[in-house]
């Protein structure tokens, strides 16, 4: 699966026109222990880089932005009971939502793995 990244540390994996969204390992590490994920409602329409969800850790509350525009088709309900999954597997089981993409051309606005790693190195 193709994987892309945002400057706000979201990742997106594309599968047949639908995108899984989560936060990167770097973001999860920076946040510390995640205590709550405010999931979006399935069916909600989002625009690229608008607020998709909220995330709270023991030391911060942050917005999670939509890497792509589209309709939220599914959210990770498991995070309601176990938000710590985001820390345990941020780029896998800690996914936040699936978005049915409205415009695949938006992916050009995102970074690939190498570009993102380089970006993160620049932050440290």
């Amino acid at each position, binding site marked *: 699966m193709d994987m892309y990244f945002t400057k706000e540390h979201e990742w997106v994996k594309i599968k047949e026109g639908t995108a899984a969204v989560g936060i990167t390992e770097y973001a999860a590490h920076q946040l510390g222990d995640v205590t709550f994920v405010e999931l979006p409602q399935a069916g909600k329409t989002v625009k690229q880089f608008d607020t998709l969800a909220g995330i*709270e850790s023991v030391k911060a509350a942050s917005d999670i932005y939509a890497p792509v525009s589209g309709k939220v088709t599914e959210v990770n309900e498991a995070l309601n009971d176990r938000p710590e999954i985001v820390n345990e597997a941020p780029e896998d089981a800690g996914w936040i939502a699936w978005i049915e993409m409205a415009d695949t051309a938006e992916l050009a606005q995102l970074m690939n793995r190498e570009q993102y790693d380089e970006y993160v190195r620049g932050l440290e």
Partner: protein
Amino acid sequence: MSRAGYCPTTPEEERQMLDAIGVTSIDDLFRPIAPGLRAKSFDLPDGMSEFEMLRTFQELAAKNAQHLVTFVGGGYYDHLIPTVVDHLTGRAEFYTAYTPYQPECAQGTLQALFEYQTAICRLTGLDVANASLYDGGTALAEAALMALRVTGRRRLVIDGAVNPFHREIVRTYLANLDVELLEIPPKLGLEDDARLRAAIDGSVAAVLVQNPNFFGSVSDFRRLADEIHAAGGLLVVSTYPVSLGLVATPGEMGADIAVGDGQSLGNPLSFGGPSFGLIASRKEFIRNLPGRIIGETVDRHGERGFVLTLQAREQHIKRHKATSNICSNQSLCALRGLIFLSSLGRQGFAELARLNYDKAEYAKQALGRLSGVEVMNGGATFNEFTVCLPKDAAEVVAGLLRKGVAAGVPLGSYYPDMGHCLVVTVTEKRTREEIDTFVRQLEGALCN
């Protein structure tokens, strides 16, 4: 040495401080403020000795009417406060602590608040309660905001029979938000909720009601709850805590959020405050409850401990994303509420409610028998009720004040077409003799 007990610095100390920051006089500090905007004088009297000051304030206090037999309610109530409430609340461990910013150092305060939350849940019949808000009015406004957040809708319906002060606070909270507040005027004697149910549609975030309402009427809001739920909105019930010893709880009626003013639980009447606001909700809304929530946990040794579990408020991690601007609570007043409830116990609290009900029923019937006096409530009331008099109610109240009786809350100021109406409140503190005297005095006032 200080110049006087209340002047903390000597001229020498002031000089040293001014020298340190490089100015010659205190006036220099105010120089950036344009001369025309500076206060010419604070018009403060000269200093007094402690004895003179006490006498001055005693003389001022003596201008108030004292030792009134009060039948005034309308939000604040003259209830008996067991001595244990003052005694325990006055303990230094509770009395001097402001707020547990270092929770691990304030286990006693946290445990007390945890127990308080438990008591409020039991009282309201709901799942979760916070550690208190400022008062009943702000609690209602916070509940309104909560309903907007939970539903994502922008319309609210509020019953005109909700305490007018609380409605004003709700209006103030919502004034600069893009929210429509629909107020449904009350009809005295028509205590059914058809007026409210007719206002419900799929755009309404919540219906805000009060039980018993400002006129003293007790309603059954179960049908209203069903209909607002069917429309995808919430039911917010503002409640008078003492009534819950007898009346069905907001939880039993299907309310999603319950609020109320805690003054009636062990807090004295004191020019309207301080008091505390209680708020409780269904568990699924816990993340949207304003303020702080104390939780119970165990430490690494398995010892029971208490922590600020949910404190996602503006002073902490949420900052501008906080659900509310409320950043404190009314710990000490809430503690009084907890001690009050604990000292009465479940049975004692039910008896207290019963006494309030029975005494008010006695007064209601006696007043209702007076010529020209009409009891306006259609159905059940708790410890207050509304009578319509053949004269202006405010004038009658003023007349009876001179006889040592505070007869109630005249409604003309709040409901312009109800100038002849009076809300009369009877708590457990009123004796039969006092009630009988009041009835005779009111009869006399109406004859003159």
